[in-house]
């Protein structure tokens, strides 16, 4: 029987969306393989979140509740998970490929001397019950299927937004078990001084239904400002590729792509963006992609649903006018 664990992540007393996505995926995997899903919830005063994990598909929730676990730190989290994994031997342990998951999972993998696959885009079991982990490589130009044949647990971090959020079933039954937390002094050497909340607008980027993004092709800060007018007309948020950030047209908090944010809006409008993989890894989950670029051979058109070949300085004002005319 496959025992699949999901390490839950919380911010400000709420479960991270990727945690729910992973519990949902683990449920699907477990149901196909006659397995069980366990969520591990670490934090301080987090027990009440267990019911949401059960509603999403967890059979068991292990709760490690301790004041020292209130804010994420590598070593205390690694200690609690090591103790649990060594005592209970899960087959699979999954993490979100977030700043927390990508910090914690490799620390744990090295301690447990097991294999770990980073930033997976898909997971399945093969006929022998091995977890096949699909990860991108070379900036998403190549996909790789990886297995961990002999070491346990098989571990993976999974990119947010690749699996759908599961339907919640409030009537689903599951078991909540509060586990003891034993921390050593050596686990507490790092201290989190503070967590500085991001500019509110920038954090909205990841949850926005409509994102209007600009690239180097916007040409100047003045032209870049056209994007705010378009975003206003659409009720959306402005984002950018790396060059506008480097040029100082927009703050780095709005960067989309590798070393920036990953988004999955309903509508993504790429303005003057060529479509380098370093950017597209952050937006390829968008449902409808509109590309506006004067170069008809720009790679962004390969990802786009609709394209307009033209100068952003003419097309964006025309689009704002067209949106107004339809209202």
């Amino acid at each position, binding site marked *: 029987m496959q025992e699949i664990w999901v390490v839950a992540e919380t911010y*400000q007393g709420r479960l*991270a969306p990727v945690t729910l996505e992973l519990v949902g995926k683990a449920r699907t995997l477990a149901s196909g393989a006659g397995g069980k899903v366990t969520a591990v919830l670490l934090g301080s005063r987090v027990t009440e979140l267990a019911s949401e994990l059960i509603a999403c598909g967890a059979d068991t929730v292990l709760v490690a509740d301790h004041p020292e676990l209130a804010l*994420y730190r*590598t*070593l205390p989290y*690694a200690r609690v998970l090591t103790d649990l994994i060594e005592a209970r031997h899960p087959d699979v342990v999954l993490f979100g490929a977030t*700043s*927390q998951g*990508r*910090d*914690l*999972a*490799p620390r744990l*993998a*090295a*301690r447990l001397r097991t*294999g770990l696959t*980073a*930033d997976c885009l898909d997971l399945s079991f093969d006929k022998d019950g091995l977890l096949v982990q699909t990860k*991108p*490589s*070379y900036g998403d*130009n*190549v*996909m*790789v*299927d*990886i*297995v*961990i044949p002999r070491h346990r647990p098989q571990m993976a971090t999974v990119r947010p937004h690749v699996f759908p959020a599961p339907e919640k079933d409030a009537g689903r039954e599951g078991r909540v078990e509060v586990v003891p937390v034993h921390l050593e002094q050596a686990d507490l*050497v*790092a*201290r*989190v001084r*503070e967590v*500085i*909340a*991001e500019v509110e607008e920038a*954090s909205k980027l990841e949850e926005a239904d409509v994102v209007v993004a600009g690239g180097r092709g916007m040409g100047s800060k003045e032209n870049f400002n056209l994007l705010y007018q378009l975003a206003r007309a*659409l009720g959306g948020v402005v984002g950018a590729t790396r060059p506008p950030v480097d040029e100082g047209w927009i703050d780095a908090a709005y960067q989309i792509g590798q*070393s920036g944010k990953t988004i999955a809006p*309903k*509508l993504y409008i790429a303005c003057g963006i060529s479509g380098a993989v370093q950017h597209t890894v952050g937006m390829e989950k968008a*449902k*409808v992609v*509109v590309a506006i670029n004067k170069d008809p051979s720009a790679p962004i058109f*390969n*990802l*786009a*649903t*609709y*394209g*307009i*070949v033209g100068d952003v300085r*003419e*097309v964006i004002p025309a*689009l704002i006018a*067209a*949106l107004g005319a*339809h209202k």
Partner: protein
Amino acid sequence: MHIVVCIKQVPATLDVRVDPVTHNLIREGTESVINSFDENALEEALRLREKFGGTVSVISMGPPQVREALRKALAMGADAAYLLCDRALGGADTLATAYTLAQGIRRLAPFDLILCGRHAVDADTGQVGPELAERLNLPQVTMVKKLECDGKTIVAWRECEEGTAVWELPLPAVVTVDSKINTPRYPSPIGIVRSAKKPLTVWTAKDLDVDEDQIGLKGSPTRVLRLFSPQRTSHVEILPGEPEEATRALVAKLREQKVL
């Protein structure tokens, strides 16, 4: 202060494809460079040395051609370079790589700080830094975009889902850095001249006192089953005409799709 910087040599271009018949990687060009985030790590080390004095060592594991990357690091200003090079180390995944690097770094003790890039742009795992920290039994902080140091402790600003978390850690520690932390310098002409006289030491598996079961393919829990090209079928519908006409058509399409 003794700072050790881990670097990886990566292809200059990520423009690779999978051969549909042989399933091997087809790489455009053979030029290699230092992984860009590792250049940020080296830059940060050089700045700390400017402030506190001391030594910057660079270390890498890989085939003989990695000397080129290490020479560049020396030209940028590192004091000494170490290459862990042995056929027995080949085929290593991140766990085996971290173990091997840890064995190399132990030979460089005492050290105060180990700096790595947040991930390598080719494999994009970001795992070696934390795995190395565990193997050396040191605290870690990853994806750091700003670092302050007083010689005994570090304060590190790292991006997290809620914004930026500010961590404080005692040294020695392992830190992985983001590109936002600095802009790496170019090697100066005098730096290039001087680098020719700096030491570049090659260590084999035997020199490292490694456990054979933990290096190379044998020490790697993960196995690659297959490589394949991502499904990328273009279905783009180009809306023709002058901007007015094209954008009117676009708005109509978006309304049809109910995204407006």
